[in-house]
Every structure is written in C-alpha cells, then in structure tokens.
C-alpha cells in the first residue's frame, strides 16, 4: 500500500463513514420526490391495514365501485403500511403527492391540521345531516373532532380499552369478576394463587397497552392528563391515587413482572394460553385471538374509589387534505364511503367498534354478546386522551406513544420508584414536548 493510495482511501472512507452515520437523520428528514400533486384525475384514498388483508380488499372494492355524480371525480385506493406511516404521510404531504382522503393514526389529522394540511370536514357533516347519518352517530363520538375552525376529521371506528376476564380461571380461583378497584385487587390475589395473571398488560416493543391502562385507570378515577381547558394536569390527586393503585398491584405480584417486555404477540399469547385471567385490552380481543368459545368475556365496568366510571377510547377517523384535485369530490367520496362501511362489520372484517348505531344493531355485530356489552356498558363512559378536556388536538399525539408516557408506564409496571416520582417525571417529560 503506497502513501498516495492510502490518503485517497482515507478521504473516501471518511465520506462513507459520514454518509452511513447520517442515515438516521436523512431517513428522518428526506421527503419524497414531487410527482404531480394529490389528484391526477381521481380522489386518492389512502387506507391502513385495519384488519386482515380481506379488509383492504373489501375497502378497495368499495372505493373502486364509487360512481360519482357527473361533476365529481372518481376515487383510487392505496394501502399504506403502519410501519413508518407518519413519515410516509409527512413526506407525501410535503412533496404534494399525498392523498386527498385517508384513514391513519388516531391523532394524525390533528397533527396535519396544525401544519395547515387538513381540509375541514364541515361539508361532509352537512351532507350527513341531510342524509340522516349524522343522527346515527353513537353519542359523543363526533365531539372530539370539532374545533373553532371546523370538523378536523370524521370518526368511522372506535378502538376502545375494556377489561376482559377468563371465566374458567375466575371459577377456578373462586372469585367473581370485579366491579371496583378493591375487587380487582382481591381477584388478582386469588388469580395469582392459581398461577394466573391478575392484571395482564404489556409494554414491550411496539406495545402501548401499558401506556393506555395507566391513563385508563386515571380516567376511571375521575382524573386525566389534561385540565378541562386543555393544560397539562398530571399531578392531581386522582391521578396519584390511580398510580398508587397500579403500584399496589405490582407489589402484590398481580401485574406480571415480565409485562414490561411483552410485545403485543406476547400479551395475546398470555390471553390465548389461558395464562391471563383479567386485564385491559382492546374491544374485539376474542376475535383477535380466535377465542369465541364464551370463556373470554368482557368484564363489568369497574368503579373507582370515588365511584367514578370511565374508560379510554381512540376514535379512528377519516381525514381530508387540502391537496386535492377537487374538495367537492373529496367531500362526496367521504360521504359515500361512510355510507358503505357497515359491510366491513357485516363481513366480520374489523375487530374495532363501529361509530354508527345502525351498525351496532346489525345481527353480525350484535350476535356477539361481548360486542353488545361493550356498546351498552362501556361506550357510554368512554373518554378520549383529551379528558378532562373535550376536543382532541395535536398534543395528544405527543402523549400517545411518546417517551414520557412510555417511561412512566414502564416505571409503574416494574415498580420502579414510587407513584409521586413517576408522575412527576411524566409531567416533566410531557411539558418538555408539548407545544402550548
């Protein structure tokens, strides 16, 4: 190796090193190449994999079957994977190649609205009022989307957290399903004695159920992360009480010590293998793990120590973007699409809950007693991340899945420190990232 070639290689190598090292930054920052805006003669509808591939096939058929009136455009369908979905949407919107209408993350509409990319759905709401669908919405599901400027998106399904229990394990443990926090504690102790998990949750890679149950318990105690006027209010007495209760479950061994590392697959396996006796999970767990034997049952609503009853819900929504070939066409397509979604429940393609009363009354949906119980008992008490405020906003995206809540939930379910310290760290972390 002669000196000349050595110095040449050195520069080349350092360039390579810098390029490789910059990959995370670049992956995070580069946008897609501009290629023609949001239309191209059709309303582009981007949809996520909400269920099995059969769901997306059905959704595609619905989209392609759309026959607009003469003045409106047709629609095209595209699946966007959950993996890096926010990056996908951001890049597409920045390069004006994004959709005109889309489903997506629960708070995505609010984030893009803050950045001026969302078209308000007031026209759609007016049309729904005219065709009668507006009155078909379940109570309260539309309210979180209303802002001073208009409706930011339109809900189409609900992802709700409810308590589930395994009947056979409760019978074996000789306890009844809990109806209050003390009942959760006692049932948990009894389940532990028979080797079952008394409060199943998980906080492993990509699993946010522990985050959600922490907030769910706060709401269930009349607390919440936000004040009624939308300011951060983590350190209130109700939240502290709820957090202390979770610590008590940990100290009694009712929450599995390994839960902090459980992925969603691990957690589902616990339910499927009849290891989990009781715990919070999404509505539709029975279908998700393929156990419709009647042994896995939605538990009764529990009351907090002060008698409060509440649970957590994520209203998944369909949003429209300003980058559209025709706003009227976007509006018209969305109205059409909302009118067609009942077939997804008729075909049992979605595990989530519908937002329309008429769908909850369909025999295909109401035939499952767990669905009926969720709609009858849990839906009326469901609150969003915005509680104790009402309207959702972009800050809730920072709460959902952010570092602050993940660290809080992981501290709690591993019993690290104490409730007050964990809450304080949660508040500090949240304040550092929330835009006032």
């Amino acid at each position, binding site marked *: 190796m002669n000196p000349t070639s050595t110095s040449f290689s050195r520069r080349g190598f350092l360039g390579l090193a810098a390029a490789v*090292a910059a990959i995370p*930054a670049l992956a995070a920052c580069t946008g897609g190449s501009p290629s023609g805006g949001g239309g191209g003669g059709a309303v582009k509808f981007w949809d996520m994999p909400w269920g099995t591939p059969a769901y997306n096939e059905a959704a595609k058929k619905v989209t392609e079957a759309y026959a607009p009136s003469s003045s409106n455009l047709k629609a095209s369908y595209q699946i966007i994977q959950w993996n890096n979905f926010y990056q996908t949407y951001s890049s597409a919107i920045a390069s004006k190649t994004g959709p005109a209408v889309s489903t997506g993350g629960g708070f995505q509409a609010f*984030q893009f609205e803050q950045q001026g990319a969302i078209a308000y759905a007031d026209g759609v709401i007016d049309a729904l009022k005219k065709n009668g669908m507006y009155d078909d919405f379940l109570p309260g599901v539309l309210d979180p989307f209303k802002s001073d400027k208009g409706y930011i998106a339109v809900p189409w399904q609900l992802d709700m957290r409810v308590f589930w229990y395994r009947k056979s394990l409760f019978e074996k443990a000789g306890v009844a399903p809990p109806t209050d926090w003390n009942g959760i504690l006692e049932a948990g102790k009894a389940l532990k004695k028979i080797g079952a998990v008394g409060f199943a949750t998980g906080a492993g890679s990509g699993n946010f159920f522990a985050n959600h149950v922490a907030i769910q318990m706060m709401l269930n105690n009349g607390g919440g992360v936000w004040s009624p006027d939308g300011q951060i209010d983590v350190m209130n007495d109700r939240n502290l009480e709820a957090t202390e209760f979770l610590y008590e479950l940990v100290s009694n061994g009712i929450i599995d010590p390994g839960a*902090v590392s459980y992925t969603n697959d691990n957690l589902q*396996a616990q339910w499927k293998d009849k290891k989990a006796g009781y715990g919070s999970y999404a509505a539709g767990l029975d279908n998700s793990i393929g156990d419709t034997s009647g042994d896995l049952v939605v538990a009764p609503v529990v009351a907090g120590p002060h008698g409060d009853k509440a649970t957590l819900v994520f209203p998944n929504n369909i949003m429209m973007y300003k980058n559209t070939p025709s706003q009227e066409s976007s509006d018209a397509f969305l109205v059409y699409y909302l009118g067609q979604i009942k077939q997804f429940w008729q075909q049992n393609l979605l595990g989530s809950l519908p937002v329309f009363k008429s769908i909850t009354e369909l025999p295909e949906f109401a035939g499952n007693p767990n669905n009926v119980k969720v709609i009858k008992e849990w839906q009326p008490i469901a609150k969003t991340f915005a509680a104790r405020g009402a309207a959702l906003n972009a800050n809730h995206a920072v709460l959902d899945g952010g570092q602050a809540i993940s660290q809080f939930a992981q501290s709690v379910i591993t019993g690290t420190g104490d409730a007050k310290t964990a809450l304080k760290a949660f508040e500090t972390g949240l304040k550092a990232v929330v835009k006032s």
Partner: protein
Amino acid sequence: MTVTTNGLAKARRGVAPGGSGQPLKRNSTSPLKAQRTRTFLWLLLPSVLLLLLINGYPLVYAAIQATHNGSLIDTGEFVGLDNFTSVLTSPALWKAAGFTLVFTIVGVFGSWIVGLGLALLLKTRIPVRGLFKILLLLPWVVPIVVSSTAWNWLLGTPQSPIPALFNAVGLGSPLFLANPTLAAVTVCVFKVWVSFPFMMMMSASALASVDSTVYEAASMDGATKWQQFTQITLPLSARSTYISWILMTIFCVNDFPTIYLLTGGGPVDATTSLVVFAYRTVFQNFQTGQGVAVAFLMTLTLVVVSVILYRQIRKSSVE
C-alpha cells in the same frame, strides 16, 4: 530469526520475495503523466458530483432541520444551536450515549473475538467445513425482523423456552427482556450473534492472505502456536482487523432494528441507544430538530472514531 523477521517486514509492506523494498522511481513531471491525470480527474468528476449530490443534499437539509424548530412538513423557525443545547443538556441523551458505548464496545469486540475464533477454527481441517461455513453465516443472512422475533419467542416471557429451561434446572425464571440489566446484556449478546459472521468473513479473508510459509518458517524457528498467533496472525491481519472494527463501529452505533425490535429501547430506557433516542425524538415526540441534532452529533462522533482507527490502519501498514 533475522531472515524471518525481514521476510515478515517485507510481507507487511507488500514486497514480493526478492524485491528491494524501495518504491519505484516515477517521472511525475512527464507531460503524458499530467495528461493522464487530467483525463482521470475529468472521468472521475461526474461520480464525485453525483456523490456530493446524494450525500450533500440530505446533509444540508438535515442541517437546516437541526437548526429549526419545525416538523417533517414545515421547517419552522430558525433557533440556532438551541436544539443541540437542549439535547446535550438532556440526561436521557447521556444515558443513551452510555448504552451506545457499551453496545458498540461489546458488539465490535465480542463479534470480532467470536468471528476470529471461528475463522481460525474453519482454517483447520474439520469435517463438513463448507456446511459449517454456510450455517455460521445464517445469523447475518437472516432478516433481523425474523431473528429478533425468534429471540423474543425464546426469551420474551417466563414460559418461553430459555427461561423455562433455567427454571427447570433450578436457576429461577430470569426476565431476560424485562430486567434492565439483563435486557442490556441480552441486546448486546444478540448483536454479537447477529454480527459475528461478518467478522468471521473479514478474519477468514485476512487469514487466507497470510503466506503459509511464514508459519512454516516460524515453526522451524521454534515458535509456539500462541507465539505464531500473537506475532504473525494478529500483526499480519491487523489492517483487515482495523477496517472491520471501523465498519462494525458504524454498524453498531447506527443499529436501530436490533435494539428496537427486541426491546423497543426499554425497559425504562435501559437499552435506548442514540439512534433509538433520535428516532423516538423525531417520530414519537415529534421534535424533528432535536432528533436530527442527535443524528448530527452521532455523525461527528463516528467521523472522529473513524479517523482514530484509520490512523491505526496507516500505522499498521507502515509497520
């Protein structure tokens, strides 16, 4: 011994047997030579421009984002070096930097030791050596999503095979991914497992380039196997070793999937590396500027480390 030493020194300089070891004299002022150099540079120019564009544009764009407070869509307001100040004063960053350091040291040297050991083993006459070579490459070849899922299945819950095995032999039921210390150890071991085939290949190619007559000569001079390893094998493969260290350092520092898929950076940030920290900052906390600032700091660190290691390469080449 003197003859052998001279032979080694020549071999390290890449001098053919019987050669003088002196560089060839070249007439650098020849017009033909100058013309060739100009042609060479002109031919090189398009590639250089392309590389500058590919590497330069994203770097400039990232620099803009690191000095602004916007999002992925909107650049936002210019904030100077505020993002760098914020991340550098964050205890979470230093915790992530600490884990990155441990992860990198274990990843680089762990995989090198295992890889070199296996390369030496495969150099000996063992049955079905070819099959072993293929099998040993599998951890590197299998997609990380598959291998992390497999490891999670093996370790994830108390009912998983390995914790169950520990339990069966009376060692309790260790929570490999739930206990912060054990999770950090597991992630590092996983990295070594994923990376040793690369190091094995690098070491095998370096070992293959060492002339077997050098070992024969050393044997005749009475050198033991250990002396041959430390005095011949390691020095003669040093250049290749340093290059593999540089590459593996870059792989480890930038490794996102190995950590994120296995532990997500948890529990309680115990396995959060700088790249996971940067990802979370951008995509979970939506603080694009700060996340990109972290990536810039990583780049700077890697360049410094690469320069230091590169000097070692040059030193070993001169020796």
